[in-house]
């Protein structure tokens, strides 16, 4: 596959062009000095200077609130599915990779989820390789990497002057073909520059041992370390809500006088109510079981069910945990 290039000075032209065919999300400053994946209206100034977004892009395929059913006179009806296409530009490799984990839950297997399916099939992902991962990043340990194109339709690498673009899927190829007039072929030197940049980005990352995690966690199920680690856990949902692969949800009804809707909202396994039975029994009664569930789900159950880790090493849960809990420490302790 041939790499394409576009001068970074033409980025706005590229995005304007993309906006003609889809709703475009791209990195832009939000007015408070923070770079977010913003819905472009054309007024934003897009920047490539950011490490990663505070929020993962999962909300664009699995919104935090989504209407599953509408009620009218007590009758349930299907809501209209969202229409149109979206292009996510500047997603980091870890977050793009996470989409494949979500696909596994919502698309693979029977039945598939029509709401996720619609948003997902309408989304084209342009990943931007990481030049400077952070100290909380460990994507290389969980199968990814700063230049990983998994989950991307197009992988972009920001070079000194150009943006290097490579199609990763047929969808990406079609997209690049439609932009042919803006793009030119990349020189072998540029391709080499990109490869070196990715390698340089990988270097400082401290590896975390996760191979064989499923088996090791199986053996560590009754380990005292869960009690010790979970003592600090405050039971908030920060880790789950920021996590690009966490997808557990709640379903609640919002109905007034027979009319309203059934909504799904993000939920979190750290909450005691998550598993509380109507009888009062709770199969995961203390933070110990709940914290263990979160780690087990990502590094063991998902492996057993899908042969895939449900962690992409983005490090959000580490950076934003109010108690500074670090799941890498726990993985180290179980020897996983």
């Amino acid at each position, binding site marked *: 596959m041939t790499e394409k290039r576009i001068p970074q000075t033409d980025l706005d032209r590229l995005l304007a062009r993309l906006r003609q065919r889809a709703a475009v999300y791209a990195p832009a400053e939000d007015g408070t000095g923070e770079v977010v994946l913003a819905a472009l209206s054309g007024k934003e100034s897009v920047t490539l200077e950011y490490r990663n977004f505070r929020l993962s892009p999962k909300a664009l395929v699995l919104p935090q609130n989504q209407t599953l059913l509408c009620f009218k006179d007590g009758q349930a009806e299907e809501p209209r599915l969202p229409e149109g296409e979206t292009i996510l530009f500047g997603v980091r490799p870890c977050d793009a990779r996470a989409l494949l984990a979500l696909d596994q839950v919502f698309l693979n297997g029977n039945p598939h989820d029509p709401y996720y399916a619609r948003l997902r099939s309408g989304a084209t992902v342009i990943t931007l390789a990481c030049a400077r991962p952070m100290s909380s990043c460990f994507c290389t340990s969980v199968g990814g990497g700063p230049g990983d194109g998994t989950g991307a339709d197009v992988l972009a690498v920001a070079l000194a002057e150009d943006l290097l673009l490579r199609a990763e899927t047929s969808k990406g190829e079609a997209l690049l073909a439609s932009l042919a007039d803006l793009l030119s072929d990349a020189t072998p030197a540029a391709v080499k520059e990109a490869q070196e940049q990715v390698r340089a980005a990988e270097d400082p990352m401290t590896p975390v041992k996760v191979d064989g995690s499923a088996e090791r966690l199986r053996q560590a199920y009754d380990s005292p370390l869960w009690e010790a680690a979970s003592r600090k856990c405050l039971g908030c949902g920060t880790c789950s809500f920021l996590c690009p692969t966490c997808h557990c949800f709640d379903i*609640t009804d919002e109905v007034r006088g027979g009319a309203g809707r059934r909504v799904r909202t993000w939920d979190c396994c750290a909450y005691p109510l998550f598993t509380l039975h109507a009888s009062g029994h709770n199969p995961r009664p203390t933070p110990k079981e709940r914290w263990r569930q979160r780690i087990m789900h990502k590094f063991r159950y998902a492996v057993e069910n899908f042969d895939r880790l449900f962690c992409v090493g983005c490090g959000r849960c580490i950076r934003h945990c109010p108690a*500074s809990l670090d799941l890498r420490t726990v993985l180290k302790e179980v020897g996983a």
Partner: protein
Amino acid sequence: MTASHEIETRLRETAERLLGEKKVDLFLGHEKASLPLRTTPLFLTVAADAARLAWNPFCSPNLAVYLPRLFRAPADAREAKTAPPRPTVGVVLKGCDARSVVALIQEHQLPRDKLVLVGIACPGMVDARKAERVLGLHEALGAGEDAHGNIRAVVEDGTEVTLRREQVLADVCLECRAPTPSICDIVLGAAVEPREAHVARRQAEELESRPADARWAHFQQMMSKCIRCNACRQACPMCYCKDCLLDQTRPRWVGAGTDFSDVAIYHLARAFHMAGRCTACGACARACPMGLDVRLLVRKLNLEVEDLYGYRPGEAVDATPPLSAFAMDDPQEFLTEP
């Protein structure tokens, strides 16, 4: 101001002694975290581990949040019979943390006789996010304190960047009126002068001077970033209710999602429940993954409580919290008269 490393040494000695002499079963302190500019809570049970304790400008977590659960009796009467005896717990407290402990004792959530309170006069703690904002695209890979109390951060290329302490202290610390803990059994470090207590009032007055719709717009703009993760509630030492009204499903008082009316009710209800109880430790704002200063509402309520009922939370264990009390002549000008 006593240097942090001196306090740290004495803190380690204190913990080692308390654990070694079996004066406490558990000692709660801070420990170096995996990321710089932060610490993580440490639950010590062995005297030999006391060297893990840290005291530095990054010890912002309020450890009082962990205390009530250590003393909560099992709900089940049968379990209560076999439950182990209540532990004696030593805990490191800054000025704000000590206020939380006072308030928790007032509300009968903590047994004073089971606590060994180790207070440290606190010169203010660094807000990691503020420091990270100052560093911009650079990331601190290590951080410490220099002789003047400023923060030294080592960034990726090995360069050392000095951040002025005042520039990176948490907002809540900049308005701390009682940095030196009051009720402690052991106090480490010389007393620290109170800070600018009028910041909160000035900011509240500034907002109040705006028209109603502008105030609503401000509230809306700020809170619309909320993702309803509950971190502000969970991090709060005063939010110890076993079943929170905001979680109840029979009936459900607040919707689960991020519809703004639900977000607004969540924050209004949470703030209201903290009125006259919030000890201004800033744990809520620090926990917010979206970086929202969720103290906005409760700060205002605490000013009202102070003006109307002459009460400041967390100052005296024998005081009655204002919303648990009343006076026949309490103001009631707001009542609707025909």
